[in-house]
Each structure stands twice: as C-alpha cells, then as structure tokens.
C-alpha cells in the first residue's frame, strides 16, 4: 500500500494551502481531486478578493489559484486529478478511484478539504433544462467561455448570487431581476450596489412561483411572500427568461468525515453538518483534519488560512517541526484569520439584524431592501465628503474586513486605521491627485472620483468599469443612478487602463453638475 505523510482530499484553496505548508516542511504530500483541473472554485472567481494584503486582497480569485498551484508544484506536491476519493477510514486509509481501478492509500495524516455543495429550492418546473445552479453559470462562463443564456433571473442575494449576477452581465447576459425570499440582501452591500446600478431590479421577500416551458425554460413567475413564506396572491410578476440561476446557499460536503467516524455537529453558524475541529483543524480522530468549507461555510480567503494551519499542525504532529515552531506559525495564521472573521458578515453574525455600523452610523435600509443606498442616505457615511476639485467618494457603508484602498492612495487621503472593518474615511487635509488607484483597488467597486463643479456647470465622475465593449473617449450615453435608473445625459471624457488596475478601467464621464452625487454608472447609447 502506498504511504504518504499527508493525504489531502480536494485541491481547492484549503487543500492546496495545506499541501504547501506541509511540503515546505519536508512532508510527502498527495492531493486528490475529483475534477480534471485543480483549484476548486478559485478559477471561477474573477472578482477581486476582499481582505488585506496578507489575505491577497484586490487580487482576483483565479490569479490566487494560479499562485497556489505554482507554489504547490514547485514544492513537489503530487496533485492527482480525476481521482475520486470514495472512502475514508478511521485508521487513515483512503480508497480512491483513479482511471479504471480503486487504489488504497495510507496517510499518517489526512486532511478533508472537500468544500461545499450548492443548496437548491424546489418550485414547479425546477427540473427543466435552463434552471441551473450559480456554480454552473460560473463554470460555463468563466471556464468554458459559454453564456448560460441570454436573459437570466437570479434567485439568491447572498454573495454568490450577487457576484454571479455581476459576472453574468460581464459575460454579456441580461440579468432581468434578482429575487430572494429573505427580506434583506444577504451578501455584501457593495456587491449588491454594483449590480443594482447596472439596472438590475432587486425583489426581496420574493420567491419563484413557477418556471414556464415544456422542454426548457421560457419564462419565470416570481411572487412576494408573507411572513410564513407563502406567496401573496396578486403579487406575481412574470419575466421572459431562458435561464433561472439558483444561488440559495452552500452546505459543507462532510460525508467523508462522517463515514470516518469523526465527531459531527449540525451547526447553523457553520451552515450545516460539520466535523467538530479544534483550533488546528483536527477532528476528533487524531491525525484527521478538516479545513475550508467542509468545516463551516466561509470565504475562500478563510479556507486558505485554515488549510495553512492544518498543514502546519500536521507537520508538528509527525515531528517535522517542533511544537514551539508550530505554535508560533499557527498564531500568525490565526491573527490573519481573526482579521477576516470581523465585521457585520462574520460567521457569528449569521441571521442577526444590524441597524448601525461600528461607528454608530445608521445602516442603509434601502441597500438591504433594494440593493442600493438611497440618495438621502449616502451623505451620512464617512467616505462620502465634499471638496473642491477632484476627490474620492467612497460608498462603502458596511463593516467588512477589507482595506486595500487605504494603501492604494499615494497621498494617504483614505483612512481605515488598524481596525480592518472600519468604514474608510477621507482625510480632507490631503490633496487628491485623481490618480484613480483607489478606484481600481476597491474590490467592491465602491470608490468614485468626483469633481463636483468643473466651473462650466458640469461635474466629472470617474467610475470603475469592467464591461465590454469599453466606451471610448467622446462616447455619449446615459448616466445611471445608484438604482440603475437613467438620470441624465453623459459623455465619456476619459478612459484610463493600466496594468496596475488589473482589467478595471477608469471611465470618467461628464454630467450636469446637479447629478454629481447621483450619477454612478454609464450606459453608452446604441450606436447606429
């Protein structure tokens, strides 16, 4: 029987990170993954990640995947693809299907990093072709360059639903609406805002009544739900769509841990049935670890740190490093992990109703109910200030663990401080040069450069733009408000692209000055 110091099931962010830490310390590591390509879901994540530098913030997910893979390869980690682990036994024996046979492999330590599976909801017509998971949409678009459909309805306002809605538009689909049975948007407000200002209507407290079609989806009806989740008659709305995308949460894929005999718990804070683990990620069975979504649904950034911790702990367990070294290394990782587990969306905050920020600013209710901050709400946030000349307007209104904007500004105009979840504030003493680094660095696309009065009755707004075709200087069109409504005519006066912006273009549009604080997106007029 083949033996390894560490067997890792799943080559996603947690698995690869653990492999790197273990291999770095001299361990012989194998990673099995059932897919044809490694990286788990990272290669489908084309948005810039949140966090701080140590969490690889403002780097797009697929680039993080490439980095991890390169590092694992350089350390000699054996990654076996199309390898399906079909069994895990308490004595740390793994059975894995490779090609046309089953192999038995023994590990001195085992890491379960199998990730999550998508939750689903039922409604009449949910089995029709054209009803797909959000993950399927990402796979089709971002891995295979194929549109899932032309007109899409998204169900689910969590981060997955919001991020994938934006990706659908980037790929060229029309998102006709975003619905969620919950009364409030579940994901980051900044993700919602960037979808809403493109003109996607949000229908909270709405669920799918039915999907139409005989052979495949031709339409969808949604309706408003009452407190008991029942559709209120007369509230139905119909949309002609060819695709219905479901993003209604994830569940840990923890069956391997269960079959191995690890102690399990059904923990709503972890979004399901998970193995109980200690601070090293070790389960109740000595030498079997779990990291990433399988031990509790979180972001990929947390999964990577959990993986690193498990890799370090396994190295200590087998004597590759000392206890002291392990403690010191793990402590470092824990600090990074704690940084991510702060703010309004921390794991412990699930389901809690928050009315004000850490700074005591009242939360935008409009953002939670419609996906955008209302004009009358935006002024109360510390990132929104007024000044003469060009200056940043930061529409970041919730406490999320993210701070790249603070480092991006060469003039130090933007202050977050040591508390990573603090709302960014503007230092009015520092003069903005209009370089736009903050606009491009904001993973939430929530920073705009505004010159409220150019002296000729106009204002200029610089916004992040990640769509094709990229409007050219001189292009005429419409300015859209935060809610995606057309508010005035606009002309593009500058388009900046740079390698440092990483595909986020800075588009500057000129609008009548009374729209300086209203216009937040540009829609080019159809070319004749």
């Amino acid at each position, binding site marked *: *029987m*083949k033996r390894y110091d560490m067997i890792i099931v799943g080559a996603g962010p947690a698995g690869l990170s653990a492999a790197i830490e273990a291999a770095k310390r001299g361990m012989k590591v194998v990673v099995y993954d*059932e897919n044809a390509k490694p990286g788990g879901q990272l290669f489908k994540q084309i948005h810039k990640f949140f966090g701080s530098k140590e969490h690889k913030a403002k780097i797009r997910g697929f680039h993080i995947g490439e980095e991890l893979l390169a590092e694992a390869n350089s350390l000699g980690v054996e990654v076996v693809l199309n390898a*399906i*682990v*079909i*069994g895990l036994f308490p004595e740390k024996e793994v*059975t894995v*299907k490779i090609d*046309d*046979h*089953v*192999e*038995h492999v023994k590990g001195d330590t085992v890491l379960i990093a199998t990730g999550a*599976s998508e*939750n*689903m909801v*039922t*409604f*009449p017509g*949910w*089995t029709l072709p054209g009803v797909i998971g959000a993950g399927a949409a990402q796979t089709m678009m971002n891995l295979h360059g194929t549109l899932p459909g032309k007109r899409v309805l998204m169900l689910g306002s969590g981060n997955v639903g919001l991020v994938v809605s934006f990706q659908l538009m980037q790929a060229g689909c029309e998102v006709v609406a975003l619905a969620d049975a919950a009364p409030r948007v579940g994901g980051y407000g900044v993700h919602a805002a960037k979808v809403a200002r493109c003109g996607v209507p949000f229908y909270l407290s709405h669920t799918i009544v039915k999907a139409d079609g005989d052979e495949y989806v031709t339409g969808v009806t949604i309706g408003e739900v009452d407190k008991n989740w029942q559709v209120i008659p007369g509230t139905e709305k119909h949309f002609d769509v060819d695709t219905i995308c479901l993003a209604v949460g994830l*569940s840990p894929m923890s*069956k*391997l841990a*269960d*079959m191995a005999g690890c102690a*399990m718990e*059904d*923990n*709503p804070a972890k979004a*399901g*049935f998970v193995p109980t683990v200690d601070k090293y990620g070790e389960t109740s069975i000595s030498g079997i670890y779990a990291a990433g979504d399988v031990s509790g649904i979180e972001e990929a950034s947390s999964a990577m740190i959990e993986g690193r911790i498990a890799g370090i702990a396994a190295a200590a367990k087998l004597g590759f490093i000392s206890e002291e070294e392990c403690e010191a290394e793990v402590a470092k990782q824990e600090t990074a992990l704690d940084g991510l587990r702060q703010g309004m969306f921390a794991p412990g905050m699930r389901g809690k109703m928050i009315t004000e920020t850490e700074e005591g600013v009242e939360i935008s209710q409009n953002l939670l109910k419609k996906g955008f901050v209302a004009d009358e709400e935006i002024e109360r946030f510390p990132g929104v200030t007024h000044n003469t000349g060009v200056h940043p307007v930061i529409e970041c209104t919730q406490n999320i663990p993210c701070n790249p904007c603070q480092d991006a500004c060469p003039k130090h105009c933007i202050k977050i401080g040591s508390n990573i979840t603090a709302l960014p504030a503007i230092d009015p003493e520092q003069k903005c040069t209009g370089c736009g680094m903050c606009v491009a660095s904001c993973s939430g696309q929530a920073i705009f450069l505004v010159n409220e009065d150019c002296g000729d009755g106009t204002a200029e707004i610089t916004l992040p733009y990640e769509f094709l075709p990229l409007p050219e200087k001189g292009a005429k069109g419409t300015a859209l408000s935060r809610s995606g409504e057309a508010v005035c005519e606009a002309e593009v006066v500058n388009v900046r692209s740079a390698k440092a912006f990483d595909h986020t273009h800075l588009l500057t549009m000129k609008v009548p000055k009374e729209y300086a604080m209203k216009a937040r997106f540009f829609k080019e007029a159809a070319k004749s």
Partner: protein
Amino acid sequence: MNDRSRDIGEFVPQPDDDMIVCRCEEITKGEIRRAVHDGMFTLTEIRRYLRTGMGLCQGQTCTKLVKAIVSRELGVRPNELEPATGRAPMRPIEMKILAKDKEDA
C-alpha cells in the same frame, strides 16, 4: 425522535405533493411525506424505503430538501434529525471498477 408511538397526525394532502424532490429517482414531496406517516422516521429509513438520494448523484442535491420535509412532517427542527449514514463508495462507481481493487498497486 425514534419513538414510533408518537402521534404525528393523519397524512393531509398538500397542493405541491407532486413536486419532484429527488431529481435522480424522481421521488415527490408527497411520497416522502407519506413515507413518514408509514412509519419512516429517520432519514436512513426514508432512503431505503423510497431510494431518495440513492440515485446517480448520491444525494448531492436532495439531502437537505428531504431533511426539511421530514422534519416538518415530524414537527422537529431539521438539525434534530440525524443524517443518513455515509459509507463508501461516496460517489457512483461502476461495479467493474470497484472490483478492480489494486491493494498492492
């Protein structure tokens, strides 16, 4: 939970009883609810009785949905129900491959 003498009332038909829940084996919500009234109080029993989650996908899609339906029928919280037993093979696998067991490869 396993107290079979517990009274869960009569089976009352619901308008969406014909909704498919287990996509692979085409088991409906009504069939699952009826199975509970037939005395199948655990997810493992439901699985054996109806084959929910025993099709090609091995419960990847319906596990959570079945759990919600059964718990509602029993009047308990979903996390009070023990999940169905997990055992190898975790994924559908052809018998001829399962038989090619390279112990000493």
